[in-house]
C-alpha cells in the first residue's frame, strides 16, 4: 500500500518499479468490435495491473468508451476476450459477469443518476438491492461515502437540483459504495470547469490512495491523464498505438501522440484516410 501512495504522489513514476502491482486486474485480448458497419475496436490488447491507474486517451470515436463498456459487459466483443481478475466475462456465463460487476464501480460520463431518486437513494441503491443490511447501516455507509466526495449535506436533493460537478461526485460515491476493487471512469472531467475538474482528479487520486483501487479512465483531457495516471494508452482508430508512462508520453516523438497532447489541428489524426 505504501508503494501505491508514493505512486499517487508522483504519478509519472515508472510502473515497473512497483512489484506489488504485477498481477493483472483486467486483460483485454484481441478485442474487436464493429458497430454500424465501422470497426470501432481492432484487436486491442491491454493489461491493467492491480492498483494502477490507467488512462485510455484518444479522439472522439477512437473507441475509448466502447472499451470501457466491454469491461463491464455492456457490450459483447465480436472477437477476443475480456478478463477481470483472470476470469473471462465474455463467455456465456452470467455468473462470471455478475462476479466481475461486483468488483467494479462505474462512473458514467453523464453521471447516469436515477432522476426519480434523491442523492442519498441513488448512492444507497446498490446496497439496498444487493446486501442484507439494516437501514442504520445503509445510512452510515452512504453518509460516509458522500462525506468522502464532499457532499455530506446533499443527500436529500434530487439530481436535477445539483450541478454537473456534484452529479459526477454523487456518481463516484455510488460507484464506491460497495467498496469495489476496480473503478472505471468515463470522461470524468468532461463538461466541468477547470476548478471542478481538478477536484475530480483529486478524488480519483484519493480513491487510489485511500482505497487502493485499480482505476481505468477514458479521457481526452490530457492534464487529467498526466495528473492521475501511472500509465497511459492511446487509441487511434480502434488500435492502441502507444502505451507508456506519462513521462514517456511527454517526450514522445510519435506524430499521433504529439498532435493529441498539444491539440494541434494539423497532423495524422486529422488527415483524411
Amino acid at each position: 500500500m505504501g508503494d501505491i501512495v508514493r505512486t499517487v504522489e508522483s504519478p509519472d513514476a515508472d510502473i515497473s518499479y512497483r512489484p506489488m502491482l504485477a498481477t493483472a486486474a483486467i486483460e483485454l485480448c484481441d478485442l474487436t468490435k464493429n458497430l454500424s458497419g465501422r470497426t470501432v475496436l481492432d484487436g486491442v490488447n491491454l493489461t491493467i495491473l492491480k492498483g494502477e491507474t490507467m488512462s485510455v486517451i484518444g479522439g472522439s470515436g477512437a473507441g475509448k468508451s466502447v472499451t470501457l463498456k466491454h469491461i463491464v459487459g455492456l457490450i459483447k466483443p465480436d472477437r477476443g476476450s475480456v478478463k477481470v481478475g483472470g476470469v473471462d466475462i465474455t463467455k456465456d456465463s452470467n455468473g462470471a459477469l455478475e462476479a466481475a460487476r461486483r468488483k467494479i464501480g462505474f462512473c458514467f460520463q453523464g453521471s447516469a443518476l436515477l432522476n426519480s431518486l434523491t442523492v442519498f437513494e441513488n448512492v444507497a441503491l446498490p446496497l439496498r438491492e444487493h446486501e442484507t443490511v439494516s437501514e442504520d447501516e445503509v445510512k452510515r455507509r452512504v453518509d460516509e461515502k458522500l462525506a468522502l466526495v464532499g457532499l455530506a449535506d446533499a443527500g436529500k436533493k434530487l439530481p436535477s437540483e445539483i450541478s454537473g460537478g456534484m452529479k459526477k461526485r454523487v456518481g463516484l460515491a455510488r460507484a464506491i459504495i460497495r467498496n469495489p476493487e476496480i473503478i472505471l471512469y468515463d470522461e470524468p472531467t468532461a463538461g466541468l470547469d477547470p476548478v471542478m475538474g481538478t477536484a475530480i482528479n483529486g478524488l480519483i487520486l484519493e480513491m487510489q490512495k485511500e482505497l487502493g483501487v485499480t482505476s481505468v479512465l477514458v479521457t481526452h483531457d490530457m492534464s487529467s491523464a498526466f495528473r492521475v495516471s501511472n500509465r497511459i494508452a492511446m487509441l487511434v482508430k480502434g488500435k492502441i498505438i502507444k502505451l507508456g508512462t506519462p513521462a514517456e508520453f511527454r517526450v514522445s516523438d510519435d506524430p499521433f501522440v504529439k498532435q493529441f497532447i498539444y491539440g494541434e489541428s494539423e497532423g495524422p489524426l486529422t488527415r483524411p484516410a
Partner: protein
Amino acid sequence: MIFSPIVKAQHWFESACSGAGYTLDLMLRAAAQLVHLGRKRREFIDQLALCTLGSLPVVFITALFTGMIVSLQTGQVLRDFGQESTLGYIVTLGMCREMGPVFTCLALAGLVGSTYAAELGTMKVSEEIDALEVMSIDPVYFLVMPRLFALGIAAVALTIYANVIGSIGGALVAKANFDVDLEIFIKNGRDALKMKDVYGGLFKSFLFGMTIGTVACAQGLRAEGGPAGVGRATLHSVVISFMLILVFDYLLTWMIW
C-alpha cells in the same frame, strides 16, 4: 436499384420480427419477476396511482360521450321500430363488452403508454439503464415489472369506472332524447348483463393494459439516438398499442363470445 424496395421491405420485416420477439420476451421476463413484487411495492403503488388517478378525467370524458353517442345513434334507429326501451340493453352490454375496455385502453395507451416509453427512453439514452445493469440490477425487475402490472390492474379498475360512467351517459341521452325511463334503462341493462360479459370485458382490459405496458417499456428500452430516438419510441409505442388493442379485441371477442 430495382431491388431497393425489396431490400427495404426485408429490413422492415426483420426489424418488426426482432421488435416483436423482444417485446414478447420482455413480457415473459416481467412475469417471471412477479414473485419480487413485494420488494417493489412502493414503485408499484406509485405507478398504480399515476395510472388510475392521472387517467380519471380523460376516461370520464371518453366514457361519458361514448355511452351518449352509442345511445343517440342506436336510439335513432330503434325509434323507427318502436324499440327505444331496449336502449339500456344495448348501451350497457356495448359498454361492458366493447366500448369500456377498448376506449379506456386506447386512452391509457395515449396517456400512460407514451409516458412509460418517454420515461424509459430518456433513461436509456442518458445511460441510466446501463447504470442499473452495471450495478447488477435487472431493469426488468426494477422498472418494467412494477409498471406493467400496475397498468394491467389500473386498466381493469378504470374499465369498471368507464362502464358505469358510459352507462350513465347512455341513460341520460335515452331519457332526454327518447323518453326512456331511468328505471327501465337500468332494468334492461341488468337483464342483459351476464357475468361472462362483465368478466370477459375486464379480462380484455387486463390483457390490453399488459400489452400497452409491454409495448411502451420495450420501445423505451430500445430507444437510441438521443431526444429524437425518445420521440420515435413514444410515437411507436402509441401507434403499435392502438393497432394491437384493436387486433386483440377482435380475437378476444371471437374467442370469448
